[in-house]
C-alpha cells in the first residue's frame, strides 16, 4: 500500500470528525469529567511524582528481565493447573483461541473487554469461526450493537450519546427500557446480558497484570463483568501481552493505585481479581480449565528497536483524556485499536509505519500526555522518533520533501534567505486586510478555518541588526 492512501484516509477521518458536532460534545463530556477527577485524586495522593517514578522503574525492571519473568510466570501458572500458550503474532493468538473453543465444542463465548483482544482481531476471528460473542462490558456491548470499534481504551463507546444508545437498545433488547434515562438503559443491558453470560461455554478476558511469583492473572473492572464472564463457563481463556508481567502482588498494588487514579480518579477499581489456575476440586464454582495465551505481536521488536519505554503502558487512558488533538477528533479518526498519544506511538509499531505515518504527525508535541502518564512514558520523544524514521525511510509525501529541501537550500545561503524573506514579507503584507490575512496562496487548508495575522514589516533578523547598530 502506498503511503499516500492512508494519509488521505486519516485526513478524511479527521475532517469528518471535526465536522461532527455531536462527537465533540460526547468526547468532551467523558474526557472532561475524567480529567477533572484525575486532578483531584492526584492532588490528594502523597507524592504522586515519586510514585510515578517508582512505577516507571518497576515496569523498566520487568521489561529488562522479561525472559526471566515470563518463565517464572509460566512455571507457577502451570503448577496451579493452568495451560500456558505462546503466540508470536495476532494470527497465532487467534488460532490458539479458536482452536480451544472448537475443541470444547463452544457455541458462545462471554468476553470481558480487553484491548489486546481488539489488537489481535479476536472479535473478527470468533465471528469467522461462527462462534457467538457476548460482549459483557456495557460500552463494548454498545459498540457491538452498532458494529463499530472502540473509540477509547477505557470508555470504548464515549463517542455515543444517550439518544444513540437508547435507539440501539430499543432495536436489539428483548425487554428494553421504558424510560429515557441512562439508569433505565443500563438496567435494560443488565437484563439482556445476564443470560448470555450465564450460558456461555467459554469466558475470555485480557489481563491487567500477570503475577510472576504466583502465576496469577489479574483483571480489574468497575462493572464486575469480568468475574461474571469468567466464573460460570467451563473454560476460561486469557489473552495477555507479554509486557503485562509484574514480579509480585506488591508490585501490582503499586501500579493499581496509579491505574485507577489516572483512569477514573478513584482510589481503586471496584472489582480487582487475581485468578490462579482453574477451580479446585471441591470449589463450588469456577472453570474446569484455564488457558493463558501470552502474546508478543511486535512487543519483542519494540523492546529491541528503541520503544522499550512504551512497554511500560498500563492502559489507563489519561494521555488521550488530556490530549488536545484527541479531544477534537475522538478515537476513531486514529484508525487503529489504540487511539490518542499512546496509539500514535503503538499503531506504527503494530501496523507498520508506512500505513500509519500520519499518526505521529497528528500531535502538537505540547507534552501534556507525558506529564499525566502514570509510568512517565516520554510519548512526545517517541512520536518525534517516528517522524524522523518516516523522513529517513522516505515515507513523507513528495510535496513535503520538496518543500523542505527547498527551504534547506535557502537556509544554507543566508544572504539569499534574507532577500527571499524580505520579498515574501512584502507580498504577504500587500495581501492583508486590517491586520489579518484571510487567504494565502498554497496555504488554503490552513486559512480555510482561521485567519493569519499580517506579518511585521521587517523580519526579526532585520530588526535585530538595526537594534544592534543603534
Amino acid at each position: 500500500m502506498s503511503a499516500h492512501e492512508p494519509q488521505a484516509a486519516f485526513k478524511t477521518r479527521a475532517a469528518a470528525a471535526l465536522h461532527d458536532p455531536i462527537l465533540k460534545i460526547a468526547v468532551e463530556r467523558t474526557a472532561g469529567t475524567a480529567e477533572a477527577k484525575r486532578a483531584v485524586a492526584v492532588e490528594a495522593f502523597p507524592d504522586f511524582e515519586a510514585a510515578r517514578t517508582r512505577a516507571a522503574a518497576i515496569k523498566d525492571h520487568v521489561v529488562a528481565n522479561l525472559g526471566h519473568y515470563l518463565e517464572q510466570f509460566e512455571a507457577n501458572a502451570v503448577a496451579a493447573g493452568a495451560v500456558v500458550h505462546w503466540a508470536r503474532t495476532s494470527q497465532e493468538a487467534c488460532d490458539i483461541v479458536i482452536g480451544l473453543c472448537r475443541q470444547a465444542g463452544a457455541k458462545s463465548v462471554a468476553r470481558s473487554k480487553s484491548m489486546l483482544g481488539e489488537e489481535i482481531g479476536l472479535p473478527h476471528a470468533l465471528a469467522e469461526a461462527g462462534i457467538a460473542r457476548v460482549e459483557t462490558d456495557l460500552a463494548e456491548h454498545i459498540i457491538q450493537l452498532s458494529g463499530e470499534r472502540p473509540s477509547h481504551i477505557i470508555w470504548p463507546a464515549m463517542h455515543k450519546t444517550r439518544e444513540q444508545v437508547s435507539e440501539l437498545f430499543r432495536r436489539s433488547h428483548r425487554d428494553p427500557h421504558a424510560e429515557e434515562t441512562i439508569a433505565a438503559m443500563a438496567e435494560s443491558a443488565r437484563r439482556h446480558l445476564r443470560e448470555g453470560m450465564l450460558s456461555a461455554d467459554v469466558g475470555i478476558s485480557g489481563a491487567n497484570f500477570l503475577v510472576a511469583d504466583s502465576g496469577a492473572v489479574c483483571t480489574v473492572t468497575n462493572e464486575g463483568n469480568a468475574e461474571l464472564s469468567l466464573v460460570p463457563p467451563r473454560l476460561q481463556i486469557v489473552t495477555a501481552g507479554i509486557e503485562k508481567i509484574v514480579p509480585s502482588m506488591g508490585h501490582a498494588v503499586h501500579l493499581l493505585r496509579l491505574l485507577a487514579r489516572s483512569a477514573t480518579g478513584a482510589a481503586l477499581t471496584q472489582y480487582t481479581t487475581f485468578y490462579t489456575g482453574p477451580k479446585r476440586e471441591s470449589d463450588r464454582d469456577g472453570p474446569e480449565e484455564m488457558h493463558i495465551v501470552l502474546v508478543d505481536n511486535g512487543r519483542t521488536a519494540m523492546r529491541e528497536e528503541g520503544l522499550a519505554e512504551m512497554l511500560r503502558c498500563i492502559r489507563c487512558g489519561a494521555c488521550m483524556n488530556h490530549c488536545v488533538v484527541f479531544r477534537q477528533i475522538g478515537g476513531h479518526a486514529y484508525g487503529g485499536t489504540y487511539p490518542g498519544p499512546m496509539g500514535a506511538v503503538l499503531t506504527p509499531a503494530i501496523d507498520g509505519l508506512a500505513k500509519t505515518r500520519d499518526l505521529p504527525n497528528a500531535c502538537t508535541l505540547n507534552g501534556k500526555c507525558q506529564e499525566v502518564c502514570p509510568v512517565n512514558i516520554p510519548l512526545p520523544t517517541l512520536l518525534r522518533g517516528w517522524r524522523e524514521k518516516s523522513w529517513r525511510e522516505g515515507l513523507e509525501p513528495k510535496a513535503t520533501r520538496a518543500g523542505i529541501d527547498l527551504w534547506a537550500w535557502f537556509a544554507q545561503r543566508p544572504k539569499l534567505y534574507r532577500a527571499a524573506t524580505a520579498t515574501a514579507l512584502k507580498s504577504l503584507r500587500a495581501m492583508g486586510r486590517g491586520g489579518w490575512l484571510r487567504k494565502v496562496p498554497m496555504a488554503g487548508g490552513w486559512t480555510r478555518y482561521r485567519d493569519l495575522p499580517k506579518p511585521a514589516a521587517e523580519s526579526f533578523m532585520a530588526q535585530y541588526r538595526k537594534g544592534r547598530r543603534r
Partner: protein
Amino acid sequence: MSAREAILSRLTGKTPAEVIRAEAAALLLAPERPAVDPAQVEAVFAERLAVPSVAASYERVADWTALPETVRRYFAEQGIPPVLCLPPDPRLRALDWSGFTLHDSAAPDELAVLAVARLGVAETGSLVFETSPEAPMLPNFLALHHLVVVPEVVAQLEEAALPGAQPRAHYWVTGVSGTTDIEGTYVRGAHGPRFLHVIRLAG
C-alpha cells in the same frame, strides 16, 4: 522453533536470578501511598466505605450471633422478602436463621447474598475474599444486595495478600458494580450488586 522458544530467545538476558530478585525487592521499599494512622484504622475504614465511588452502608455488631437479626432488619428496611443466599460457611450456617428461606447457590436474579470477607482494608475500603469449597464466588457478583461480614480490618492494600498457596481466586471488592459508559454518567448496579452493606464484627 516453537513460538515459545522464538519469543524467549529474544528476551532472555544474563542477569542472575538473585540480582533480579534483589532489584525487585528494592522497588517495594517505602512505597508512596495514602497513609493510614495505625490508631485510626477502624475509623478510616468506615470513612472510606462512605466515599461516593464505594458508597457502602456500614454498621458494627457485637459478634456472629447478632447477624440474623441484623440481616432481618436490613431486609425490612429495604423491603426484601426473607429469602437469602447463604454460602456453606460453617460460621454462618451455625447461626439461627429461622424465618429465612436459605439456599447456597445464587439464582440468576438473586436479590441478596450474605458473605464473609477475610479482611477489610482501611486504605481503600476494600473487602478481601478468597474462593474455597465454603466460599463460592458467583453469588457475590449476581446478587442485587451484597451483604458482607468483616471480622478483621488491616491498614494497607499490601496486607491483603494471602501468604502461601493461592486459591483459585483472590479478589477485592471496593464498592458496587458501577458504570460510567453512557456519557460518563455514573450508574450503580451495572451487572452485579447495586447495594453493598458492610457488617463489621466488633468482638
